[in-house]
Structures are given as C-alpha cells and as structure tokens.
C-alpha cells in the first residue's frame, strides 16, 4: 500500500514539474520588469555635493544673463531689483526712465513690489516654478535659478507672471521691517557704487 502511494506521488511530481517550471520562469521574467516600472527601487544615491554644484552652475548662468549692476546687487545683497514697466497713475507717464514701481526678487521668497521714490511697500507676489515632469518627487530650482526664472519672467512678460502669482499685502510671508532694511541696504549699496541714478530700469 505504501509503495503504491509513493509511486502515485512520484507520478504526480513528474506530471506537475513542467507546469511548475513554466510558472517559475514566467515569475522570473516578470520580476525585473515590474521593479523597473514601479519605481519603488529606483532610488538615487544621495549626493551631498549635487545641490552645491547645481547652485554654482546656476550662479554662473545668472551672471551671464543679467546686467552687471544686477549681478553685483545679487552677489552683495542677495536680491535683484527689476523695474516695473507700467504707469501706476496718469502722472507717472511723464517720468521718463524712472519707473513708477519696482520689484525686489528674492530666491525662494515672494517678489515684493514697492515705490522706489518713497520706499512704500505695495504688495508681495508669491510665485514658484514647480517641477512639471513628475519625475523624482517635489524638487525646487537652485536659489540662483529661481532668481533667474523670476527675472526672465518679469523682464519678458511682467503681466503674465504677475497674473499667475498669488498677491498679498506685504507681511504675509516677508517681514516688512526686513524688506525696508533691504531697501536701505540697496540705497547704501548704490551710494557706495557712486550710482547717482534713482533707479535704472531693467527695461526702458
């Protein structure tokens, strides 16, 4: 009886072996494909120097694009001033080269609009340049690239970037006292550079 059961089990194993082998081969073939498409194991090794190198490249790119005065401003003060292109009131139309308002462009902070002649703070525009590709999680641009993106957007199509931004009164994200201090630093910086002009617009 025992011998008969053993023989039966042996026959069953022999019959089932091809099916089991085929299933194993299919599973092995599917496994690498699944791991490469799911992205679960697609982890980049952390490179501590990557962000620093990206920022260095971004600074060089910014320097090669903006005016020498704007580059010096960013290098020394950490922000860039961009002149507004519109008139705020009818009386502003006869101002010539002097803009009625200007923007302070900070890295990864809202753009601040203000009146250069009085120092009055007008509003802050929250704008960001998010990763649209959907790859690699939520990253942001290096600081100098963020400034360059804002500079390019403001000098080429001010209305479009301002329309897309969320506008708030100054004080929502930025400390007004700190912005006023930056305006004072800017005035001192210009005085030291011997720049007698009130505001040299980025686009006249």
């Amino acid at each position: 009886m025992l011998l008969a059961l053993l023989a039966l089990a042996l026959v069953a194993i022999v019959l089932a072996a091809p099916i089991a082998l085929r299933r194993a081969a299919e599973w092995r073939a599917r496994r690498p494909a699944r791991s490469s498409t799911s992205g679960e194991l697609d982890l980049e090794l952390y490179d501590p120097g990557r962000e620093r190198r990206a920022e260095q490249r971004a600074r060089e790119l910014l320097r090669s694009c903006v005016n020498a005065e704007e580059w010096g401003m960013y290098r020394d003060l950490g922000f860039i001033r961009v002149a507004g292109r519109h008139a705020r009131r009818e009386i502003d139309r006869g101002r010539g080269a002097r803009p009625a308002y200007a923007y302070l462009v900070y890295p990864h902070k809202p753009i601040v609009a203000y009146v250069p002649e009085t120092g009055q703070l007008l509003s802050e525009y929250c704008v960001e340049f998010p990763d649209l590709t959907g790859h690699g999680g939520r990253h942001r641009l290096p600081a100098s690239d963020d400034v360059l993106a804002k500079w390019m957007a403001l000098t080429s199509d001010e209305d479009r970037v301002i329309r897309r931004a969320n506008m708030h009164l100054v004080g929502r994200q930025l400390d007004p006292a700190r912005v006023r201090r930056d305006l004072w630093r800017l005035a001192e910086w210009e005085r030291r550079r011997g720049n007698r002009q009130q505001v040299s617009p980025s686009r006249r």
Partner: protein
Amino acid sequence: MKPGHGEVLLAEGDPRVQEDEERLIEEFRRQLDEGMWAAVPVRNPGSGRREAQMVKEYADIPPDSERVIFFPRASGG
C-alpha cells in the same frame, strides 16, 4: 533649468546645419509640450540693458541667439 538639478544641457548644434536644426526644433517642441517656458537672454537695442524675451515658436528665436533657456512655468506659490 531643472528642479533639483539646476542647469541641464538639452541639445546643442548649429541651426544653419539642417540635421542640427531638426534636432533643436524637436527638443524645443518637446520642452514646450512638457509645459516649460522658453526665454532668450537679449540686449535691449535702445537701452543696451539685458532682458529676456519669451519665445513660443522656434521661428521666434532671434537668429543671433546663443542659447534658449527653458524653465518651469510660474504658478502661484
């Protein structure tokens, strides 16, 4: 400009060479299809100051441009 990486060279070539130009056009369109904005740093002929010029078509790129910079489109932060 690529978030998390900074500046990335996408394509380069001489637009006067047909093969290069086709490659540049293809990359230009691909970037715009992905939702990027394209800008060219230019010098204002009046003031001499530098500024950017947005381009929406390959044909809009000023012929003497050395580069086109693609960056993610702005959104409210």
